[in-house]
């Protein structure tokens, strides 16, 4: 009796999930299989495209640069996003609501518009450089655009909300009594933060950095518009193979390598995060 009830229950969930599963199968799983297939097929099965990736240094260099830029962007987002999330989680609810809206606001405009806006701000005669020169910080305009600095600024700006919201959601779940308890036991504000709040917010840091890092790996528009000729990221190479050289099989191979490296990174990261979970001691 019980087993059949359980089976009915799981059937019900399957029915609820069915539309989403169908959409994923048609729009995600099928094309992905197509890409994997294309990466080893061009008028007959071959591994030439993969050989090319590992033989020609530029592709591995671009992959390495992609991971490096993503890591820098992730760190910048964490450095800017963690304090902001902390303010959101600890200020009065009304202020928190207002700040949350401000954090989400950029999502209401297109990423292309926002990227062009940054180009206006960061250009040689842009507002940022003008202010820096008026304030005497710089004598000549700083190169903020069409180089790696531009890429990092642009990408960090776009990805910051993901970090803030992810970290914030974990911080919100931390019982304020923990910090109060630390104070009652003699801990100063800094000690209470370092020994209690920070360790309890680690799952948020783990999730936020993972999310931002993975999103960074596939970034295309921002590095294409704000980077210089040397700041090519893997997504831009893939686009070039698709749009200009029309070598779709090679583009597919690059995409599969990026996917594999991302998954490997994710798996490695997951092991660390799981360890975190054990120390965190929830559940």
């Amino acid at each position: 009796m019980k087993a059949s009830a359980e089976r009915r229950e799981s059937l019900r969930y399957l029915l609820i999930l069915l539309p989403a599963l169908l959409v994923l199968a048609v729009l995600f799983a099928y094309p992905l299989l197509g890409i994997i297939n294309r990466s080893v097929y061009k008028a007959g099965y071959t591994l030439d495209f993969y050989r090319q990736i590992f033989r020609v240094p530029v592709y591995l260099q671009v992959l390495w640069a992609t991971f490096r830029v993503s890591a820098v962007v992730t760190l910048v987002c964490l450095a800017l996003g963690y304090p902001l999330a902390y303010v959101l989680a600890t200020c009065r609810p009304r202020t928190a609501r207002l700040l949350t809206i401000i954090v989400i606001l950029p999502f209401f405009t297109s990423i292309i518009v926002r990227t062009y806006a940054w180009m206006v701000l960061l250009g040689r005669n842009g507002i940022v450089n003008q202010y820096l020169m008026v304030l005497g910080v710089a004598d000549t305009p700083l190169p903020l655009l069409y180089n790696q600095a531009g890429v990092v600024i642009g990408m960090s700006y776009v990805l910051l909300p993901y970090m803030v919201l992810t970290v914030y959601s974990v911080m919100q779940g931390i019982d304020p009594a923990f910090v109060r308890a630390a104070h009652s036991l003699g801990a100063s504000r800094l000690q209470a933060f370092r020994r209690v709040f920070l360790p309890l917010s680690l799952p948020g840091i783990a999730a936020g950095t993972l999310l931002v890092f993975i999103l960074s790996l596939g970034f295309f528009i921002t590095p294409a518009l704000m980077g210089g000729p040397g700041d090519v990221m893997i997504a831009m190479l893939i686009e070039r193979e698709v749009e200009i050289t029309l070598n779709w099989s090679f583009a597919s191979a690059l995409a599969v390598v990026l996917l594999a490296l991302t998954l490997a990174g994710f798996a490695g990261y997951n092991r660390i995060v799981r360890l975190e979970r054990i120390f965190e001691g929830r559940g």
Partner: protein
Amino acid sequence: MAPSEGIGGGAEVRLHELTKTFGSVAAVRHVSVTVAAGSFFTLLGPSGSGKTTTLMMVAGFTYPTSGEVFVDGKPMAALPPQKRDLGMVFQSYAVFPHLTVFENIAFPLQIRKAPRLETLHRVGEALELVRLTGYEGRLPRQLSGGEQQRVALARALVFRPRVLLMDEPLGALDKKLRAHMQLELKHIQQHLHVTVLYVTHDQEEALTMSDRVAVMQGGRIEQVGSPSELYDAPASRFVADFIGESNFLDGVTVADEGGGRWRCRGAGGVEFSGIGAAALRPGQPITAAVRPEKLVQAGDEGAAALGPHANACKGVVEEAIYVGDVTRYRVSLGADDGALTIKVPNRFAARPLAAGAAIALLWSPDDTRLFPREAA
């Protein structure tokens, strides 16, 4: 953890005209009370009575609108919570989930930069005190609620604070465990001579553990006294109702019998005498309160001891409820006087009564408290 090792046991805590308003709402109003050094003092009240806000002002987490907290005569206003050196046990325990039992209890010692050896020694003592020796390496999620509670207690005591604040610490435990922890807390308090300021809404818990209790309502202290004073001589109808159980009879004073004793007449004509909880005048509307166990059935054991001047009335049993150790009877006195509940121990119950039976009740005027009442 012997008292001789400490700095001379507990400290005196004095609240002076403590007031807290949130916007236009006064959560705590002019609370003044002195907690004797080394005593177990409880703030008792229903939710919203201001007891937790009062405790938070002592702890330093809430800043008073006006008034002052003194610990051993020293004003606390300028000190943040971490400088007050008060131990605190929270309602949610707040045992740090990412630290082991040992690390949790060692936390206040490490903050104070105690030497390693002393930390080891003191954590060991604290664990022994709460009987958790051997649990050092466990994480909080591997502990039951009662065990987490003990860790929180050990952590709040390990740095030898002279005052321990507790905010409904037993609220989440089941009834049996709660009763057990009440006694254990009391023993630990007596052993360490620490001053305990305890907050609860559970009157039984307050009576069991406290040397003195302050009953709070609407941000004010209604009455301060020992458990027996509160139970036997409640100062207001609220206290008589909140602490234990009371029968209430509305009436008016008829004649002053001297010594604070008044003759009264109930709305339905029942006459009785009682002790005024405040100054009364003739013809004043009053509410009389009598505990159910103070009412004796005429002819039962104890009835004779009440003497010839006992209050007496007749009624009809409406309902008899068997609750194990006693049987509770709901006795109707007639339409205007309402009904009384009496509690008869079952070991005396030679003649159990059924609904509809006539019954005569006796009780002592000394067990009857009279509270002035706003005339309807």
